[in-house]
């Protein structure tokens, strides 16, 4: 009798073990990519999945293009430099730059960048770009024109090309180069471990994955945990530049911004003819330009609008949207250089 009960119990337990995927086939949620979970929860595919039919595509080559501007063609020759003036890394990081992806803000990003040794840049990081749905958002229509932005807004490939030709003022990329950069970007896609999920939220998503119930709610929860689109709103320039934004600045933060942001491009003329350093002459020059009225080189104006290219050259300074440098931080910078 006992033997029979034991056999029945064994069969029942075995049934549950085999029939329950949550017990057997279980990659921890933290090890899964956000996109895979998104799809598993019924989310839509993105338009920029890799096209395997394009020859010569390589994430490694995409990485080289991103970080150095050159790579080797499929035939082994070296490509021409993508841009004489910039690299992608002039304006974009390739790693996480916000501590909490569901609440990206420049203040938290500055502290996080300092602790991680990252530059503090105008452009959004490419970490997680493949998880986004739209690009060149909001006020970028003023910079590039509505027509241009409409063409690229939902198309990451076209956005990469616009960046190459417009932002970087370089040559157009070949199809295999764009696809290689895209392949590199896919290697930077978000993982579930990147998201700030509470235990309950994690459980909710796991249950939705395993039990196939509440998937729509879980998907909505997931989408709230990272940016679907990086917002970009440009600053206005203060009416009275002497008064500025009338916020008291913190020179300690200003020093961080100067060293991690301004000097990233301007130190010793790295990406600009206008060279800056940590010496007093440079700081005084910037401080003077915060007060300069009616000048395109007023520092507030430069931060809010960037510069036009100088005659005979194409390089220019891109502006800082509010989401990348806040008014408080601009005043922090002013407080530092004006000391």
């Amino acid at each position, binding site marked *: 009798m006992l033997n029979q009960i034991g056999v029945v119990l064994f069969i029942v337990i075995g049934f549950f073990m085999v029939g329950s995927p949550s017990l057997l086939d279980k990659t921890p949620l933290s090890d899964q990519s956000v996109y895979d979970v998104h799809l598993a929860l019924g989310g839509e595919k993105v338009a920029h999945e890799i096209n395997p039919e394009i020859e010569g595509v390589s994430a490694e080559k995409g990485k080289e293009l991103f970080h150095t501007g050159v790579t080797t063609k499929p035939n082994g020759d070296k490509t021409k430099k993508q841009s*004489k003036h910039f690299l992608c890394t002039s304006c974009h990081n390739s790693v996480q730059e916000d501590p909490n992806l569901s609440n990206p803000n420049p203040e938290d990003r500055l502290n996080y960048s300092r602790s991680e040794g990252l530059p503090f840049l105008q452009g959004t990081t490419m970490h997680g770009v493949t998880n986004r749905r739209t690009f060149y958002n909001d006020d970028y229509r003023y910079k590039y024109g509505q027509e241009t932005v409409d063409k690229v807004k939902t198309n990451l490939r076209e956005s990469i090309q616009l960046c190459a030709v417009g932002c970087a003022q370089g040559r157009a990329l070949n199809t295999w180069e764009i696809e290689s950069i895209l392949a590199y970007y896919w290697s930077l896609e978000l993982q579930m471990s990147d998201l700030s999920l509470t235990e309950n939220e994690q459980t909710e998503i796991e249950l939705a994955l395993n039990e196939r119930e509440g998937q729509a709610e879980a998907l909505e929860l997931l989408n709230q945990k990272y940016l679907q689109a990086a917002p970009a709103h440009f600053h206005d320039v203060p009416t009275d530049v002497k008064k500025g934004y009338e916020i008291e600045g913190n020179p300690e933060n200003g020093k961080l911004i100067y060293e991690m942001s301004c000097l990233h491009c301007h130190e010793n003329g790295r990406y600009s*003819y*206008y060279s800056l*350093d940590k*010496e007093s*002459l440079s700081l005084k*020059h910037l401080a003077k330009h915060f007060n300069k009225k009616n000048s395109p080189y007023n520092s507030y104006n430069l931060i809010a609008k960037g510069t036009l290219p100088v005659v005979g*050259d194409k*390089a220019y300074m891109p502006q800082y949207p509010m989401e990348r440098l806040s008014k408080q931080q601009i005043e922090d910078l002013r407080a530092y250089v004006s000391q």
Partner: protein
Amino acid sequence: MTVTPNQNNMKQSILLTAICMMTVPFLFGQKVYQTFKDTRVINTHSTEVLEKGQMDIRIGHRFGDMFGDRGGWPTFYGLEQAEDVLIGAEYGLTKDIMVGISRTKGSGPLGQNVNGLVKWRFLEQNAEKNFLVSAAFVGLMSTSTLEANDEGTSVTAFQKFSHRNVFHTAILVARKFNQRFSLQLGAGLTHRNLVIEGDDNDILNFSASSRIQVTKSFGLILDAAYAVAPNITSENGFYPGLGVGFEFETGGGHVFQINVTNTSGILATDYIPYTTSNWGDGEFRLGFTISRQFKI
């Protein structure tokens, strides 16, 4: 008043401390950037070279004597005359080597010159690597394209093509002491293939140049060149080249310089052997240089 040993020691200590304070910012840290703002000081080359792939279009001008026998109101203080003009282009081959070609009017007997330049910066001031100075080698060759004349004893008879050529080489050593002060010393040799009898084919020369940065975009530059050769003496009417200038950097790739110098020639192949203008007689002139850089 006799200076006591203690006061001597104190003065030496103060001097040593001052030197250390000036150089301390550059004892720690990276490569030094912009010892000078331009590849020239006034006439003398600096240790700066163009970045790789950078092209520099240059225009230089030296007006006539401000005062003296050939200056004053009749020539509107030299502004109505052009002692020398340079139009040229230079290019950064590598991060340490630049080449250039230019055409100069020439202020000496050899004129309508086509000039070739090579400059190699073989040392860059870098505190981390214990390089306390930057150093460069400059090579310049000038070829006069004047039409040969019939006077057999003239330097412009050009009975051989080689008679048209003048060469200048120099080693330059510079140090950026701090953000406001840089100093450069140089030694060179200028060789003229053909000279009149009694003149010197080879002229040893020394230079001293300095930059004093007043604001980020405005600096004061000083330049001196001294030629050493048996015939190059003040008794024979030759004088050291001395210049002072103001340098403006616009931040958009432009460096504009305005200077006052007694040298008529812009290039070393001209001003080393042929500076006969004397500051003391008012024989100095206004000059300017415009430089615009492009990434190619």
